[in-house]
C-alpha cells in the first residue's frame, strides 16, 4: 500500500495534503465508533504535508514513507504533543522531545496523524485498561481489538491510518494484529532504539510497525532501525533495506512447528493453521515438528521479569517532575502515595506490587534470578531449534478476538492471551504476525494470525517468508 501511495504522490495524482485530509475525514467518520485515537495532530500533519508537497512540486525525489500518514501509540513521545500512555498519571504530559523513531520518521517526511489508545502503560491484552476509552475491533465491534497496541492496530484495520507504530513487550503488536487481521512486526531486541518510548520492561520492550502488508512493514522497519547513542541496548546493525529482500521465494527453507504450541490447538483455528502449513509446503518450504521444551515456563518467567522491571521503571512517576500530582498533601511521602494511588490504574498497580514483592529482600533469588536462569534455558531452546530450522511457526494466539469484559476479572486468564507471543520477547528473536485466514463466529469472519519467528537479526529472511505466504493466493 505504501508503494502505491508513493507512486501516486510522485506521479502527482494526489498531494500529501489531500491524502492527509482523506485520513482525517475517515477518522472523523469512523473513530466515534472505533475509538482508536486519543489525540489528533492536525496542525503538525498539515504542516508536514505542505513541506512534502513543495518538495514534489520542485521536482525533488522523496522517500517511500514521505507524505504518507501514520499513527503513533501514545507511549511514544512526539515533541510538543500530549503523550499519556493512556494513564491519568500522564494526563497533562506534553512530551518535550521526539523519540528517536519519531525523529527518524519526521526526517523522512512521514505524516503524523495522531496518538492512539492502548492498555494503560502497555499493560494488558485487550486495550480495556486504558484510562480513557474503549477501542473496538473494526472487524466486529462487540469484540476487543487485542492489546496493548489496540488503538494503533484498529486505526490501520479501520482505514484510519496507512500504518502505525506500536510497542511489543510480550505480544502487544502481534496479538492485536492477529485479532484485527493486519500485519504486526516485533523486531529483534536491540534492532530499534527505544529512546523516547515510555518504558515498561526494558529487557523485553521493542518498537515495531503495524501495516496492511508485509512489504509495508519491511519499508517501515528500514526507516526506524539502527544503532542509537540514546539507547545503550540498541544493536550495531548496518542500514539494511529490508524491502529489497522480499523475493517471494522460500523453496528449500525449513519451517519448524513447535509441538508444545500446537498440540492443544482446537477447532477452527487448528484447521486454518493446518491449511497455512499446506500453503507453505506448496511454496516449496519444508515443515518439521520441533520441540521448545521449556515453553510451559515462559509465562511465569515473563510475568516475574516484566513485573519486576515495571516496578523499577514506573518508580519515576512520583508527582514531582511531570505528570499528575495529588492535591492537598502535606508531606513528600504523602505526595508519592496519593499521586500513585489516584494516577495509576488497577492493572498497573497490581504489576508494580508484584514486581516490588519479587525484588524485595529475601525474594530476589527465588523469583528474579531464577527467572533469568530459566530465560537462559528458553533462549537455548531457540538456539537448538535454529540449528535445524530457518523459522519457527505457530498461530499468533490460541483463540480469536474475545468480547469486552470476558477476561477483565481474571488477570491470569488475560495473561494467557500472550502464551505464543512472549517467548519471542524472552529469547529476543524477531517475530511477525500476518493474516492466515478467518473463523466464522456469530456471523463475522474473525481473523486468525500466523506467527513466524526468525533467527536473531534475520528480519529479512523472516519478512520474506511472510511476504511469500501473503503473495501466494
Amino acid at each position, binding site marked *: 500500500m505504501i508503494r502505491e501511495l508513493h507512486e501516486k504522490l510522485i506521479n502527482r495524482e494526489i498531494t500529501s495534503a489531500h491524502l492527509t485530509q482523506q485520513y482525517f475525514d475517515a477518522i472523523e467518520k469512523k473513530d466515534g465508533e472505533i475509538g482508536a485515537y486519543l489525540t489528533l495532530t492536525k496542525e503538525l500533519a498539515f504542516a508536514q504535508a505542505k513541506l512534502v508537497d513543495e518538495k514534489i512540486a520542485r521536482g525533488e525525489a522523496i522517500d517511500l514513507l514521505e507524505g504518507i500518514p501514520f499513527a503513533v501509540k501514545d507511549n511514544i513521545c512526539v515533541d510538543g504533543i500530549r503523550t499519556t500512555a493512556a494513564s491519568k498519571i500522564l494526563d497533562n504530559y*506534553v512530551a518535550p522531545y521526539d523519540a528517536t523513531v519519531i525523529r527518524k520518521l519526521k526526517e523522512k517526511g512521514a505524516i503524523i496523524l495522531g496518538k492512539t489508545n492502548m492498555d494503560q502503560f502497555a499493560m494488558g491484552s485487550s486495550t480495556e485498561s486504558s484510562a480513557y476509552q474503549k477501542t473496538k475491533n473494526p472487524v466486529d465491534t462487540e469484540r476487543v481489538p487485542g492489546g496493548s497496541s489496540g488503538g494503533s492496530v484498529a486505526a490501520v484495520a479501520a482505514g484510519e491510518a496507512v500504518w502505525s507504530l506500536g510497542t511489543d513487550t510480550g505480544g502487544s503488536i502481534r496479538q492485536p494484529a492477529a485479532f484485527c487481521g493486519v500485519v504486526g512486526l516485533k523486531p529483534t531486541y536491540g534492532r530499534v532504539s527505544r529512546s523516547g518510548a515510555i518504558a515498561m520492561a526494558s529487557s523485553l520492550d521493542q518498537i515495531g510497525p503495524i501495516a496492511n502488508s508485509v512489504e509495508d512493514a519491511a519499508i517501515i522497519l528500514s526507516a526506524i532501525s539502527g544503532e542509537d547513542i540514546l539507547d545503550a541496548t540498541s544493536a550495531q546493525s548496518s542500514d539494511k533495506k529490508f524491502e529489497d529482500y522480499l523475493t517471494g521465494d522460500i523453496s528449500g527453507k525449513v519451517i519448524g512447528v513447535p509441538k508444545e504450541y500446537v498440540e492443544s490447538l482446537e477447532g477452527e483455528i487448528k484447521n486454518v493453521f493446518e491449511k497455512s502449513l499446506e500453503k507453505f509446503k506448496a511454496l516449496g518450504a519444508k515443515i518439521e515438528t520441533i520441540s521448545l521444551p521449556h515453553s510451559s515456563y515462559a509465562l511465569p518467567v515473563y510475568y516475574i521479569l516484566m513485573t519486576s522491571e515495571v516496578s523499577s521503571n514506573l518508580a519515576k512517576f512520583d508527582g514531582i*517532575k511531570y505528570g499528575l500530582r495529588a492535591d492537598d498533601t502535606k508531606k513528600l511521602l504523602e505526595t508519592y502515595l496519593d499521586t500513585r494511588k489516584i494516577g495509576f490504574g488497577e492493572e498497573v498497580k497490581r504489576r508494580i506490587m508484584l514486581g516490588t514483592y519479587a525484588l524485595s529482600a529475601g525474594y530476589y533469588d527465588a523469583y528474579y534470578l531464577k527467572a533469568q536462569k530459566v530465560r537462559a534455558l528458553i533462549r537455548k531452546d531457540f538456539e537448538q531449534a535454529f540449528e535445524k530450522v530457518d523459522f519457527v511457526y505457530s498461530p499468533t494466539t490460541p483463540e480469536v478476538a474475545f468480547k469486552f469484559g470476558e477476561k477483565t476479572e481474571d*488477570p491470569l486468564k488475560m495473561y494467557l492471551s500472550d502464551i505464543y507471543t512472549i517467548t519471542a520477547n524472552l529469547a529476543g528473536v524477531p517475530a511477525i504476525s500476518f493474516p492466515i485466514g478467518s473463523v466464522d463466529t456469530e456471523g463475522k469472519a474473525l481473523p486468525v494470525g500466523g506467527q513466524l519467528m526468525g533467527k536473531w537479526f534475520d528480519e529479512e529472511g523472516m519478512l520474506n517468508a511472510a511476504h511469500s505466504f501473503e503473495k501466494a493466493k
Partner: protein
Amino acid sequence: MLTREEILNIASLARVGLSEKEIEKYGHDLSEILDYFKKLDELDVSDVEPIGHITGMQNVFRADKSEDFGDLGKKSIMEIAPETKDGYFKVKSVL
C-alpha cells in the same frame, strides 16, 4: 495467601497508596499469581548462568558529558512540572 500486613508492606515499598477494597483484592490476586510462579520450582537451574543481555551485548560506552537542552528545552521541561520555584522543582516537606 499473603496477609494484610504483607500487602501493606509491599504497597509501602512500592509507594502506592491503597484503598480498603484494593488491599483485599490485591491480597487475593497476588497470592494467586505467586502460586502460579511456583511452577518454576520444577526446574533445577543451579548450573545455569542467568541472562544478562539477551543478545549478549556488553560494555557500551559513550563520553561522560552532559548535554545542554538550551533555554527552549529547559522551558518546556519546567513548564510541565507540577510546581516550580526559581527554576527548581518544588516538593512538599520531607519530614
